[in-house]
């Protein structure tokens, strides 16, 4: 994660609030949608659609939140269907499965910490770029 005070413009109060909300949206959805990982992505995507005509600062942060959720969706979905197969089908609990669950738990935890930190910083109008996701977002979001 990379704190960047020199973002090209200082966001106004309403911009900071919306940008911060894009991260809060993924947090809220994570609580509601724990059993079904796609709920987080849908919630963040709807928020992104609602703000795609917003200012550059808002669009940038909505996109960063969306991209992080999309990659979590991929790993969480594998965990979800693997668990489903163990409960309802012939799969059994193995070291492989438990190691996978611990791995996705740690990645989700890292995302949670980064999301809370970024939500607080963007609410203050500060720009935070995540490692990899920040560069990817800059590539996708045009001024």
């Amino acid at each position, binding site marked *: 994660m990379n704190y960047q005070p020199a973002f090209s413009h200082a966001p106004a109060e309403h911009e900071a609030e919306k940008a911060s909300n894009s991260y809060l949206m993924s947090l809220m959805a994570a609580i509601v949608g724990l059993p079904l990982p796609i709920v987080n992505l849908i919630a963040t995507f709807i928020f992104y659609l609602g703000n795609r005509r917003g200012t550059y600062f808002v669009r940038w942060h909505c996109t960063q939140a969306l991209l992080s959720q999309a*990659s979590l969706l991929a*790993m969480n979905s594998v965990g979800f269907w693997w668990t489903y197969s163990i*409960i*309802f*089908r*012939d799969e059994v*609990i*193995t*070291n*492989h499965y*438990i*190691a*996978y669950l*611990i*791995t996705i738990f*740690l*990645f989700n935890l890292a995302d949670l910490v980064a999301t809370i930190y970024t939500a607080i910083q963007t609410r203050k109008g500060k720009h935070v770029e995540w*490692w*990899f996701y920040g*560069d*990817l977002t800059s*590539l996708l979001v045009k001024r």
Partner: protein
Amino acid sequence: MKLLLQGGILIASFFAMWMGLRQLDWVSIFHVKEISTSTEEKLGEMYWNIYKKLEDEETSKSITNPIDSLLNHICKANGIDTDIIKLHIIRKDQVNAFALPDHHLVLFTDLILDCENEAELCGVMAHELAHMEKGHIMKKLVKEIGLSMLIAMTSGKGSPETIQQAVRLLSSTAFDRTLESEADRTAVDYLITANIDPEPFANFLFRMSSRDGAIPQQISWISTHPDSEERSKTIIEQIKDIAFEKKTVLDSTQWISLKENLKNE
């Protein structure tokens, strides 16, 4: 280029963490096997305690001994621990057999009477053994009742209605088609390994499926095991090219006297 490298590092770190964590024996650390065995044991004990109060169990040695001999023969031939199987014979005018958690095998007297020879009965028992050995019983319970309810039941928090509903579920509803087919295939393998002809088991299924006029409740085993005619054909197809030595376990007088005793007692 930088972005691709970062993405690659992110994906590689995910797999490295996963593969690294895989090196630990989590199944032992979290006592996974012990927990699932103890849950099944508690459920099995609870189910059987409820079920035996509702029904009349046959304990006469002249009936249980020959059936035990058949069951032990199949188990020993297939490396199944006979000590863990708890055989119960219930005096009831229904053609039914089912398995409860923790290796309780329940046979109704009318099912035994309906079998024309020991191989038919062995087929039914092998089918139920397959459900046990493949873990189908717990899968069915989790699917129908829910994991949380099962845990609540084992910790004594389940309501009496829920527990009774769970008992009914195992004795009177069907497994899904995939599990039934797997149990049939495994049963045939068990029978062949034990040198018992699986064809009579196929005949039993076919005979049951042809009883259109019967009261459904009287042929419960078939109503809980649908598509019997199709399954009978599949068994015949499975064994048509397999050569094996066919033997009987009981002598002819033992089988006849078992049926006589069932009718008289």
